[in-house]
């Protein structure tokens, strides 16, 4: 059974320089209270892995704007001009990864695969400096697995074992990132007693989750 943490307690665990896998797509399905707590604590030199850098005032975009982030691994920065400005100014390192490749690289890191063989990006800038392999006459890029020191997830419901349910477009990267964080912290909207989530409804089994954030008050 897992005791639910206060946001400040969770943020306390994260050191400067940590690699954070953060769920969310344009901030939808991001752990907003955890992000608040990190902003308060003010870690430096973070690496953020997220689908996008959201907007300056939303989701992981706020961490970028606050200057806490030295690197992002992401598929899209188009709606956060601050990420682009910092990239051009050399203040932040941006690794752009096709969205499907990004989620598979995280999955590979989480399920113990050596990499991802994908046709996406072959013949483009994405392929530069990467090994390719020919299989049955087709060419594939070899993309490396991604893991994080922490996975910071948002979810709809949790029980005290750590089983998680997600809803609608707030799933996005969360269930996959749950596999690939050394320490996994989930921020649920609701926490329910043990036995309330039927086994078939569980999308992230509690064995993957290290800590729950307490409910919002």
């Amino acid at each position, binding site marked *: 059974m897992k005791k639910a943490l206060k946001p400040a307690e969770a943020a306390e665990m994260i050191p400067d320089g940590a690699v954070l896998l953060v769920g969310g797509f344009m901030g939808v399905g991001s752990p907003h209270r955890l992000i608040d707590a990190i902003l308060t604590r003010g870690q430096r030199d973070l690496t953020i892995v997220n689908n996008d850098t959201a907007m300056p005032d939303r989701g992981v975009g706020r961490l970028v704007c606050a200057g806490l982030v030295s690197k992002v691994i992401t598929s899209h920065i188009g709606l956060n001009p601050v990420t682009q400005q910092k990239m051009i100014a050399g203040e932040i390192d941006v690794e752009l990864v096709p969205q499907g490749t990004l989620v598979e690289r995280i999955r590979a890191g989480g399920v113990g695969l050596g990499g991802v063989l994908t046709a996406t990006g072959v013949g483009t800038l994405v392929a530069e400096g990467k090994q390719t392999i020919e299989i049955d006459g087709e060419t594939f890029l070899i993309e490396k697995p991604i893991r994080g020191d922490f996975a910071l997830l948002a979810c709809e419901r949790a029980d005290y074992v750590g089983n998680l349910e997600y809803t609608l477009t707030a799933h996005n990267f969360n269930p*996959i990132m749950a596999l690939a964080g050394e320490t996994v912290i989930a921020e649920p909207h609701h926490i329910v007693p043990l036995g309330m989530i039927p086994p078939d409804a569980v999308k992230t089994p509690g064995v993957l989750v290290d800590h729950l954030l307490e409910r919002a008050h």
Partner: protein
Amino acid sequence: MDAKEIIARRVAREVRPGSLVNLGIGLPSLVANHLPQGVNVFFQAENGVIGLGARPPEGMEDENLTDAGGGFVTAVPGAASIDSAMSFGLIRGGHLDMTVLGGLQVDARGYLANWMVPGRMVPGMGGAMDLVAGARRVLVAMVHTARGESKIVPECTLPLTATRRVSLIVTELAVIEPTDAGLLLRERGPGVDVETIRAATAAQLITPEDAPEMVLA
């Protein structure tokens, strides 16, 4: 009728009943407005919903149900919420019948460039590289020229999205199909003659005498 409406209405006629379709943000998203009533199509948004519906009435938005651009949407009966691994599994695994994407350039090989202008605009590829690599049919919906310059060029000068030939290019002036022999003019825009199309197209074009005028939805 403006150029975008012509394009959206022509692309709408490519949507086949019972198919799974992904519409890019911007111009491609207009296609949904021109489908015949009752046509049984499922729209996928790559952030994780199959069965995307219209914008909800004011006050009925849900923060956890958005499209890939972050706009509020609804879900149709029979919709499914999926995570990013499933979403891109569908895209990359050939389960998506059609994607409609915007374009910066398409060249004589049928290769698309649509994700960056070096030094000027680097939003990132998002899901575009996966969509072009994986969808069964790739339609490019774009205006024929930008700032007086043809967007249909002998060879893309902007970074490629993929080295896979797109299925069809739809502009306000023409429907063009990339083939082994080169770019083939299939249809003329409303009231547009072949000479006008040639003049507006930097790439070489195969122009059958009898290319018909496009029919709009």
